[in-house]
């Protein structure tokens, strides 16, 4: 997509990331917090893809290496997705477990452990 600056993608990603970060700070619902974290991960994914698309020419003129570097970013995205899936499974499991125990998942009600 010629004409679109790399900074555009990066800026969007950064904005999404920041929004996710703010979401973690301001929300009390752990599911929403978790969604915000997913938002952060996706922002990073976008960054990876954008970099993969735009940034490899800066490196030496070895085509194999260049391709390998191009692919690295995409590979990251693939694995992040896998990791996100595993995290979601476990994370939601934890939330369920807590809900079963106390019928409330408000994050601000959880501070038995402190001090």
């Amino acid at each position, binding site marked *: 997509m010629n004409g679109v600056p790399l900074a555009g993608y990066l800026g969007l990603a950064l904005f999404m990331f920041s929004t996710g970060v703010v979401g*973690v*700070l*301001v929300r009390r619902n752990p599911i929403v917090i978790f969604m915000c974290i997913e938002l952060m991960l996706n922002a990073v994914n976008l960054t990876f893809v954008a970099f993969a698309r735009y940034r490899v020419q800066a490196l030496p003129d070895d085509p194999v290496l260049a391709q390998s570097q191009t692919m690295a970013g995409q590979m990251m995205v693939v694995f992040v997705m896998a990791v996100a899936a595993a995290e979601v499974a476990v994370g939601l499991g934890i939330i369920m477990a807590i809900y079963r125990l106390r019928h409330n998942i408000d*994050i601000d009600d*959880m*501070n*038995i*452990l*402190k*001090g």
Partner: protein
Amino acid sequence: MDSSAIWIVIALPILGFLVQSLGGGLIVKAVGEAKSKSILGFLAVAPIALAFIIGAMITTKVGAGPATVVTGPSWIQIAGFSIPFEWIVDPLSMTMVLIITGIGSLIHLYATGYMAKEKDYARFFTYLNLFIAAMLILVLGNNLALLFMGWEGVGLCSYLLIGFWYKDTANARAANKAFIVNRIGDWGLVLGLFLIVCVVLDVVPKETRLLSYDVILPALKTALVAKPALATSIGLLLFVGAAGKSAQFPLYVWLPDAMAGPTPVSALIHAATMVTSGVVLLNRMHVVFECSPVASVVVACVGAFTALYGALIAFGQTDIKKILAYSTVSQLGFMFIGCGVGAYWTGMFHVTTHAFFKALLFLGAGAVIHAMAHDQDVRNYGGLSKYLKITFATMLVGFLAIAGFPFLSGFFSKESILGAALSGNQAVIDGVNYGAICGWVGLAVAFLTAAYMTRMMLLTFGGKTERWRTIEPNHDAHGDHHGLDKDHKPHEVGATMWVPLAVLAVLSAVGGLVLNGKFEEWLYPQGLAVLPKVAEHASNLQMYSMIVAFGGMAFGAAIYWRGLPASQGWDETKWSSIRLAQRDQFGFDSLTTDLSVTGGAELSKFLDSTVEHTVTSGRALASATSGAGGVMKFLQTGFVRWYAMVMLIGVVAFIGYFALAIHGGAN
């Protein structure tokens, strides 16, 4: 008897001490308490008497030549510094040996009677024998370290004997006071010793016996003649020590309190022997003082002031032993005048005569106290001459001797001191003859002495009123004696007690006549080390002396002939302010005691509660740290969102730091 027999002299009292301390209990157990006393008494007196005999035999061999030094094993022996056990046999030490063992054995004998009803008989004689041993070490030791050992040893025995009746806390306090005040003196003495070591080492660098008299006296002479300032330092430091032991102002405060001890102790330790150690020290170290007019003047003036001060206070006392104690303080002042004006032997002369008559007076007072069921207040006495004839007679001799009655011992010794002071010109700074001033002061004190002694004698023995009949009997603290009932008559003491009195009375009477004029030749055959000889006699002095003696007695008699004036009676509110001030030592004792004891305690408590409690114990630091821990505990809120926020703050800080770093000197 050879000089090396001096070992026996020292060993005998030590032996007595060991026998009494280790075997005392066994003997009591073996033969029963009553019987044991005669055995223990004999075992206590015999070594001292024997020591006296041997001492006397050695003395006859002591000539005018250089002192004999009997060396034994070493005490402290390190590279470059050694202190052997070594004894000096010379006129000075032998004079003291004779006084100590002679008077000592008499007082021991007296004490066997005086303490007869005491349970802790063995303990008493343990201490007493130990005292004789320590005193002998003090005078016989050929180095300052041994002198110091004896010095502290006699202090210890003094402490133990003052606190002999330990159940009364006041006695214990008096004992502590004596020891501690003496320690203040020791502070000076020790520093003086150190200074001497350093000075001597400069002169004789190869020498290791840096405190032995035969080494240091010549060395000091060499070193100090040209350095009067150094001599002054050493002299003053030594004098601090001497003043502590010999109860000179301002360190006299312990001596009156020391009267808490049994009366034989007061006689032996606090009148005849121990308190004169200071004079002995000054005689030993006269080289130093000869080189320093300033130190000499200080010695003389402090002596004169003490003499005056003690005499004045004596007027205000009602306790017979206290009167005698202040009298001792005063007389010690005389001795220091003698030493201060460069006539060291006159000091020793007075030491000797004073030992006779003051021991006599104390023992006599003891007899009175014994008869009065341990009541010591002269206001409760009166008319006792009728009942205590021997006591009265002997004490009268002692009284006349101290008052300066012509041709008794005190007359001669006092006169020689005053003569030296008035005629000498050693204690002179910038043309002012302080020695002479001290001499005139001394003459005035002689007047006062006669007066207050008259007061004491008349209140005790004189008058018709037997005041003890009207007074509530005084039950003493240690409770070994019955109170004196109204019907009871005071009893004369037994033979063990009056025989010593008689002997001492004879000595007091003739001692002066015999010894007058002999001390200079005896102690200083070669003359002084640096200074010229001092004349002992001043013109008209004998006449002045007689006048003040008789004047004083007359003055005293005029007031007290009829008995106790109301102005000094039991109702102390009627006392005149001067008399009250005299009673209270012009406020000096309470002032110093308050300042030092209370002040010291307050300061210590303050340090304890501030520095010790908070700083050095680490409390301040610990509570600060734990406070910080509390803050961190508070920050650990337990809320996820808070943690996330802290994390994010950290994140921003990190990236912010890097963002700034890239501009501010990346690479």
